[in-house]
C-alpha cells in the first residue's frame, strides 16, 4: 500500500510553493498517471511544481523529514514508464525552464533541467552552435529527462549520447542537499560523478541544472534517401558504410509498416511498396563531402538499393527529418496504442534480429514496425495494440519481453536510450548477475540511501520478480 500523505505535511509543502505549484485534486492529477509508456498507470497523490533549485531543496527536505518517496518528472515523453508514479509525490520540473548562461566562446550553456531540448539549440543557433543529442522527441522532452535516460538520437552515431555532452550537473539529493558535480571544465580530476548521475533515471535525486557542451554547426550536409525492396539489403548497406570508415552523422532505417504511417502523416514521397528505406546524412566540411556522398551511393547500390535520392535543398532535408523524427507519433495512425521498444544488438546482427522480430510478431499476432538508429545497432520495434482489449495488452507485453530476450541472445543489450524504467525492470537479470545489481544498488545508496527517489524503477527488488504489471492499473474500459 502506498503511504498516504498526512494533511499536515501537505500544508508544509504548500507553504513552499505558489498556489499554481501545488496540484492535489484528483481531476487534475489524473493526467499525470502515465508518460509515453501507457501500459501502466498510477495516479500520484500530490504534484509539486517548483520553480527553482531552492524550492526543490526545500520540498525534498520536508519529504525527507517525513520519509516520503517521490518521483521526478520532466515532460513525460519517456517510453519506459520512468515517471510512472510509484511514489505518493510527483515533482515536475516543467516550470524550471530558464536558460541561465551562454558562453559561446567556450561552447558551453548552462540551463535549468526543465528546459526543452530543442530550445537549447534554438538559443545558440545565432552563434552557429548546436546541442548534439537530438532525441526524436526533442521538441518536447526536457534536458533533465535526457540526463536521466542518457538519451540519444539519430546523430548519436557520430556525436555520442547525452553523457558525452554533459559537463556538469547540479542535483538536489533526496535529503534536500544541493550538490554540484563536474563543472564547465573539460576533464575534471577525480571520479566521474556526473557520469553516475547521467542515466540514473531519477533514482539519485532531482537534477536542477546542467552545463552542456555545444558543438559548431557542420558547414554542410548531404542527406541521402536509399530505397530497398528488402530489409536485409538495407542492413547490409549499413554494415558496408560503417566498415568503409566513413562516419555519417546519422543512418536511420524505416521499414514498410512505418513508411505507410509516415507517408500518410507528412506527405513525403516514399514508395509504399518498399521493404525499407535508409536516411543517411553526411555532415562536415564542404570539401570532399560530395565525393563521400558518391561513395556511399555506390556502396548502397551495391548492397541492393533500388533507388538512391539526394535531398536537393534544405526544405527536402527538413521534410525527411521531420518524417523520421515524428515517425513514432505517426504510428498513431495505424493503431490506438503502441509500445516502442528499445534494444541494442551488434550492428552485424541486425538482419538476424529483424528476422526474429518478424517471427515474434507472427507468434503473438501483433503488428510490429521498425524505425531505428541503424548505424549504432539501436533498434526500436514498435508493437501495435489496442488498450481496450486486455488480451492484446498482455500479448504486447509478452512480445516486448521476447524482443529484448532476443537482443540479449544476439549479444546485445536491453536499452539503447529509452531506459529501463518499469518496462524492462524484470529483464535486468537477463544481463546482470545478482552481484552486478547489488553493486548498482550500492552506488545508488551513496546518493539515495533510503531509496526514496523514483522507487520501483531500474533495479528489480531481489527475489520479488514483479508480476507483469499491465492490466493491474489499467483505466476503466
Amino acid at each position: 500500500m502506498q503511504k498516504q500523505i498526512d494533511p499536515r505535511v501537505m500544508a508544509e509543502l504548500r507553504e513552499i510553493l505558489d498556489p499554481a505549484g501545488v496540484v492535489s485534486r484528483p481531476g487534475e492529477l489524473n493526467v499525470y498517471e502515465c508518460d509515453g509508456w501507457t501500459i501502466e498507470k498510477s495516479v500520484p497523490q500530490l504534484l509539486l511544481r517548483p520553480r527553482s533549485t531552492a524550492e526543490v531543496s526545500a520540498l525534498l527536505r520536508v519529504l525527507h523529514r517525513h520519509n516520503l518517496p517521490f518521483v521526478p518528472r520532466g515532460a513525460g515523453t519517456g517510453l519506459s514508464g520512468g515517471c510512472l508514479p510509484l511514489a505518493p509525490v510527483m515533482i515536475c520540473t516543467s516550470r524550471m525552464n530558464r536558460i541561465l548562461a551562454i558562453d559561446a566562446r567556450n561552447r558551453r550553456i548552462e540551463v535549468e533541467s526543465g528546459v526543452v531540448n530543442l530550445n537549447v539549440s534554438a538559443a545558440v543557433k545565432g552563434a552557429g552552435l548546436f546541442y548534439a543529442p537530438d532525441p526524436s522527441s526533442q521538441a518536447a522532452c526536457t534536458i533533465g529527462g535526457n540526463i536521466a535516460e542518457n538519451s540519444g538520437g539519430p546523430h548519436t552515431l557520430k556525436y555520442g549520447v547525452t553523457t558525452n555532452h554533459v559537463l556538469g550537473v547540479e542535483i538536489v539529493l533526496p535529503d534536500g542537499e544541493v550538490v554540484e558535480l563536474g563543472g564547465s571544465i573539460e576533464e575534471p580530476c577525480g571520479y566521474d560523478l556526473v557520469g553516475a548521475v547521467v542515466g540514473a533515471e531519477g533514482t539519485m535525486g532531482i537534477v536542477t541544472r546542467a552545463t552542456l557542451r555545444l558543438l559548431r554547426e557542420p558547414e554542410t550536409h548531404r542527406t541521402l534517401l536509399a530505397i530497398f525492396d528488402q530489409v536485409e539489403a538495407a542492413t547490409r548497406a549499413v554494415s558496408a558504410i560503417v566498415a568503409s570508415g566513413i562516419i555519417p552523422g546519422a543512418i536511420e532505417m524505416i521499414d514498410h509498416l512505418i513508411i505507410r504511417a509516415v507517408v500518410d502523416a507528412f506527405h513525403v514521397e516514399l514508395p509504399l511498396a518498399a521493404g525499407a528505406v535508409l536516411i543517411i546524412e553526411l555532415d562536415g566540411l564542404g570539401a570532399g563531402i560530395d565525393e563521400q556522398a558518391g561513395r556511399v551511393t555506390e556502396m548502397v547500390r551495391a548492397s541492393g538499393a533500388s533507388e538512391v535520392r539526394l535531398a536537393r535543398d534544405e526544405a527536402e532535408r527538413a521534410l525527411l527529418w521531420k518524417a523520421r523524427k515524428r515517425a513514432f507519433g505517426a504510428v498513431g495512425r495505424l493503431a490506438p496504442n503502441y509500445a516502442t521498444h528499445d534494444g541494442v544488438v551488434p550492428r552485424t546482427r541486425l538482419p538476424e534480429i529483424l528476422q526474429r522480430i518478424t517471427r515474434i510478431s507472427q507468434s503473438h499476432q501483433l503488428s510490429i514496425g521498425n524505425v531505428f538508429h541503424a548505424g549504432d545497432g539501436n533498434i526500436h520495434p514498435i508493437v501495435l495494440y489496442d488498450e481496450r482489449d486486455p488480451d492484446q495488452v498482455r500479448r504486447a507485453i509478452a512480445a516486448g519481453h521476447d524482443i529484448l530476450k532476443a537482443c540479449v541472445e544476439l549479444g546485445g543489450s536491453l536499452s539503447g536510450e529509452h531506459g529501463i524504467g518499469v518496462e524492462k525492470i524484470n529483464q535486468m537479470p537477463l544481463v546482470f548477475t545478482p552481484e552486478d545489481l547489488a553493486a548498482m544498488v550500492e552506488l545508488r545508496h551513496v546518493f539515495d540511501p533510503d531509496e526514496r527517489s523514483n522507487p520501483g524503477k531500474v533495479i528489480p527488488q531481489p527475489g520479488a520478480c514483479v508480476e507483469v504489471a499491465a492490466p493491474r492499473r489499467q483505466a476503466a474500459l
Partner: protein
Amino acid sequence: MGSAPRANQAGGSASPGAIRDVVDYELLFDCVHCGLCLEACPTYTLNRAEMDSPRGRIYLMKALAQGALELDADVVRHLDLCLECRGCETACPSGVRYGQLIEKARVYVERNWRRSLRERIRNRLIGEIFPYPRRLDWLLMPMRLVDALGLRGTLERLAPAALRNWIELLPAARADAPRFPRAAAVHEDDGPGKAVAVHEGCVAQILTPSENANSARALEAAGYRVVRLERTVCCGALDIHNGNRKRALAFARQNVRELSRCGAEAIVSAASGCSAVIASYGELLREDPVWATAAREVSSRVTDLSSLMIAGRTPFTREFVAKVTYHDSCHLAHGLGIREAPRALLRSLPGVTLVELAEADLCCGSAGSYNLTEPEMARALAARKADNVVATGVDYVILSNPGCELQIAAELRRRGSKIRVMHLADFLALAAGGGEARGAR
C-alpha cells in the same frame, strides 16, 4: 502500490461516460500520448501543466468517456482554457483531430455543467450581441462618442477591471483606414477572372469594415470577379466555441445556401477564423439531409486573400518602403494550413522587407471571444506576442484576422509602441498607394 481515488464525488449531474454519446469516442484513440504537442500549445507554454496541454485535455476527455472521472469544476476549467487555436493539430504526428474533439466536448460541458451566474450572463451577452452586426453597432455608439471627444483614456482608467478588458479591445473609429485605389484595377479579362465571394462575417463588419472592402478591391485589381453576397450571417464560430451547436448549425445552413447560390469558385473572408469555420461546414453538416453535399462543396472552395493574390496579376507597381513582420493567425495557419502564401506575397511587394517573427504561429490570445471570457490567459499571451513583435524592430505587423489585430494592437498601445498592426488587406491597400493610414488602431 494502490492508487489514489480515481473519480471525484462533487460536480456534474451527467451520468458517467455520457460524453461518449457526444464526442467521437474513436477519435480519442488517435492520441498515442507522445507529448509532441506540448510546446505547441499556448496554454502549456505559459502554465506548463499537463492538464493545460492538448495531451492532458484529450486525457481528460478520455477519462470522462471511460467513466474514470466525473465532470467537475477542474475539468471544466481546463477545457475552458483551451483557445481552440489548433496549434496542437499542426504539431501532432498522429493526426489527432483535436478541433473536432474539443468542439464536441464543449457541447457536452454546456449541457451538463451548471455555470455560475456571472459566466452565464457573460456568455449570454456575447452570444446575443456579437453574431448580429446591427446589435453590435448600436452598442458601440456611445464608444464612438467617447472617442470623438477624446475621452477614451479617461474611460479606460475609470472603468471597473471587468469592463476595461472589453473597452481596451475596441478599435478607435477608423476613418483613416487605407483604401485600395480603384485606379490600380486591372481589366477583368486580363486576370484569372475567377468568381470570388468575400464572406463578411459579423463582428468584422462593424469593428473592422475596411478589411473586407479592401480584400474585395485587391482581388478585383488582381483580376478576379468579386460576387456580391446577399444574406450571409455569422459563420457560427462563437457558437461552436461556446458549445451552442444548434444555432451554429442554423447559421451554417444559411451560409451554405447563400455561398453555393452566388456561384463563387473561391471563398475568402477577412476573418480567417470565419474561413476556417466555413471550411468545416462539410464536417459540421455531414449528416444534414438537405445540405450535406452543398456544404462539402462550399467548404472545399475556401481559400485566402494571399493565395489568390499570388495566383493573380500583381497590381503592385509602386514602391512602398516598409519593414514588416507576419503573425500567423491560428485559423489560417493551423486550420487551413496557409503559411507560405502570405509571406510570399509580402516579400513580393516592391520595397517591403519581411522579418520573421519568433513564435509566429503561437496564438495571440484573441481566439474569438476568448479574450473576454479568459482575460488573464489572453492577456499573458498578448504580452508574449508583443514581446516577440517588438524584438523584430519592424514598422508593421501584418496578420489575417481582425481578432488578432484588435488583440495585438491593444497590447502594443498599452506599451506605447509605435508599431502598427494591420490586416493584410489593409496593408495591401496601403502598399498599392491607398492613402496614408495612421495605423489600424
